């Protein structure tokens, strides 16, 4: 097993999930890279703790009344899944189809939307857009329930084209209006009551109510429409079918996938004016999109096995989003072996770092990449990761410290200690500057095997948590 195989597997596991420990990486490398990719894509994950267990102790996590329990529940799944790829996929789609609590005032329907992403997010893109268009959270968020035959609200039609499929410059204002006409009648059951409760943030009389899609034939504009050059008595399904045939859609979704899994692209509004970082990769992904019938899973299979994904040039290129940072750290520390009240506080940290799950700043979602970092959020990120990695009472940290002590016996050198620690935390690659800093610390604090105390190792792990490389994926 070569060091490069470990490093490549570490890169894969950081991108498809939230990172892996040294023991996990060794196990996966033995399986072989391609086999590991296939397993991640094709197997259903196992969760160490069941929904029943969560709900018994934290009833609000599964039947949320407020805005935050959703994120906390989701975070549990990220931490307790053996392969948190489904959660990563949901996070990917949540970033694109960003829907927020501020307008809905109903956590359950938002949680339902995330479950929908998990269920359909690896399937056919046309199918996913269809479920999205029928999703109650989206219907309220973009006002499609207020779009009627003869009195359209074009909000959903506009965002479907601009943010969810093709991007600006590939359609006309007329197309937006025609799409909106096609989606008239796509609403939610008991719309007046549900929207009244949302508008008033009402939990009365008996808590929040879940919602479901309803098609109202009598409110649907069944007349002829012309959309992207095609004419017919289109309904919403037809609009989605036409959208998915477009090259612009293939390119748009490929660029999103590349940006999330390979390297950060500029924010979406800049896409019409900036070429992709790797146009060949986007082109290749677009081909897979058409060749495999818009299948997202097959696009990802191609991507994870591609040279451009495996290239060392993109390792550690992305800035971890707050959710990736927190989930990855909690998977290392393993501090929540069962439902715990502290989980709610931990989840709040993603909000302090600028990413409140299911409460994005706008329909455009969050701007990723270096935009996660400002003077306030960097302090929050460093404080979080340092304090968590430095807590020797956390089960995962205890195990790491014990491993370090046993592996280093009679072979202590500062370089070897640094190597072991970085391996234990998931084969982190660091720059020469960072390595020098770590070396200085070890030489000043841990000058021999006798100095491998819990306190000193805790301090060293805190320093690793503060490294710029720990903030990247």
């Amino acid at each position, binding site marked *: 097993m070569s060091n490069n195989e470990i490093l490549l597997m570490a890169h894969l596991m950081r991108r498809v999930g939230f990172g892996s420990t040294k023991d996990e990486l060794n196990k996966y490398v033995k399986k072989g890279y391609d086999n590991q990719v296939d397993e991640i894509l094709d197997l259903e994950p196992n969760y160490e703790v069941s*929904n*029943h267990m969560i*709900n*018994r*102790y*934290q*009833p*609000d996590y*599964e*039947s949320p*009344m*407020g*805005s*935050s*329990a959703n994120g*906390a529940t989701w975070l549990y799944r990220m931490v307790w899944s053996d392969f948190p790829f489904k959660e990563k996929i949901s996070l990917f789609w949540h970033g694109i189809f960003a829907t927020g609590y501020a307008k809905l005032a109903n956590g*359950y329907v938002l949680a339902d939307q995330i479950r929908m992403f998990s269920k359909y997010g690896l399937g056919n893109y046309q199918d996913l857009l269809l479920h999205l268009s029928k999703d109650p959270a989206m219907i309220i968020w973009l006002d499609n329930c207020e779009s009627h035959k003869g009195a359209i609200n074009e909000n959903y039609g506009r965002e479907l084209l601009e943010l969810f499929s093709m991007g600006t410059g590939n359609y006309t204002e007329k197309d937006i209006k025609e799409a909106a006409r096609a989606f008239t009648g796509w609403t939610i*059951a*008991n719309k*007046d*009551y549900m929207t*009244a*409760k949302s508008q*008033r943030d*009402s*939990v*009365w*009389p*008996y*808590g929040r*109510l*879940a*919602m*479901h899609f309803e098609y109202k034939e009598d409110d649907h504009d069944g007349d002829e429409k012309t959309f992207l050059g095609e004419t017919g008595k289109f309904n919403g399904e037809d609009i989605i079918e036409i959208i998915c045939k477009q090259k612009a859609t293939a390119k748009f979704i490929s660029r999103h996938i590349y940006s999330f899994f390979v390297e950060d692209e500029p924010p979406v509004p800049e896409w019409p004016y900036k070429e992709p970082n790797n146009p060949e990769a986007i082109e290749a992904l677009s081909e897979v999109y058409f060749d495999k019938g818009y299948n997202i899973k097959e696009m990802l299979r191609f991507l994870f096995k591609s040279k451009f994904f495996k290239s060392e040039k993109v390792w550690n290129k992305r800035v971890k989003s707050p959710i990736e940072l927190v989930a990855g750290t909690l998977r290392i520390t393993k501090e929540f072996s069962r439902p715990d*009240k502290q*989980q*709610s*506080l931990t989840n709040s940290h993603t909000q302090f770092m600028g990413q409140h799950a299911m409460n994005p700043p706008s329909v455009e979602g969050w701007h990723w990449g270096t935009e996660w970092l400002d003077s306030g959020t960097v302090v929050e990120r460093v404080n979080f990761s340092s304090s968590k990695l430095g807590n020797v009472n956390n089960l995962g940290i205890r195990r790491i410290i014990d491993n370090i002590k046993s592996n280093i016996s009679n072979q202590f050198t500062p370089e070897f200690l640094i190597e072991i620690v970085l391996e234990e935390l998931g084969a982190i690659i660091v720059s020469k500057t960072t390595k020098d800093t770590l070396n200085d610390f070890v030489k000043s604090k841990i000058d021999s095997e006798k100095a491998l105390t819990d306190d000193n190792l805790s301090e060293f792990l805190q320093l690793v948590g503060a490294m710029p490389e720990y903030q990247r994926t």
Partner: protein
Amino acid sequence: MTTSFKIKSRKTMGLAAMQGRGFYYPFDLSFDSNNRIYVLGRGHDYDTRGCRITVMDMNEEYHGTFASFGTQDGQFMWPSSIVISNSDKIYVSDEYLNKITIMTTEGKFISSFGQFGEDDGQFDGPNGLVFDNENNLYVVDHRNGRIQVFDEEGNFIRKFSSQGKSEGNLNLPWGITFHSDDRLYVSDWGNHRIQEFTTDGEFVRSVGSNGDKEENILHPSSCAIDDIGNIYVSDWGNHKLKVFDKEGDFLCSNRGEATLSEWAKDFLNTNVEEKEARLKSNLDFDLEIFKNDPFKESAHIEKLFWCPTSLTFHKGNLLIVDSSRHRIQVYNKVYKV
């Protein structure tokens, strides 16, 4: 001709409320000697105001609230169960703080006992509470998989059972009920059954099992026994009320029939816009998407039970704490059809 049985709703009490009149994730209730009901609110991590005790009666008269979230005397973090002794002292278990708090019915703190651990008198998640006829307090020490017995002052007397799956063992048990024939019924949540013990801790029998049939139960949270020995189970995982006869044979079940409580009517009468929109709505629908997912079904259909956590018989009424709907559904005893 086969005899069939039914259980019917009488009324619904309560209202979702973060503070004041109403409940927020109620977990349990108990009656004092004046027939007042003390409803224990769990609240939740992001809104701790719900962590309180709401006092009311069967006529839905509201008598105020007391207790709050915190770690000080008389405060709770994850309150789980409440019971009132013959001398009208309130006992509340807190599965986060690992202690039992004793208070007056006016909400004044008296004392507390317990701490985290496995030794006698220590707890790992105290849950269900019940008194027997001799004023012994039985505490479900759920993560230790055992029942501990104390006197009214909290002095340890004895313990029984242990963690496991075999007969007489417990796996994350939740509620506990005492029946006047000196029998204890423990809701063995993790083993999907009700276990009957003598007050000395001898295993008597087990009722219910996991599976996909109507008579099966999934993660029971509580049970109650009527005057002829019928066993009522809050089938928390299936979101149902299940009834078994005294032999343990299945009689019937109910998925929930909540109506508007007096407090709910008051709310809607003063919030006319919501009331009008509600009147035009169909809140009792049947859709294929819910099949085999009772949790989701309960999230959509308001009248159904959603995580029932506690059952209590009082003067012929069966009170069911319908936790995730923040209310109490009241039923009559089971009857032959």
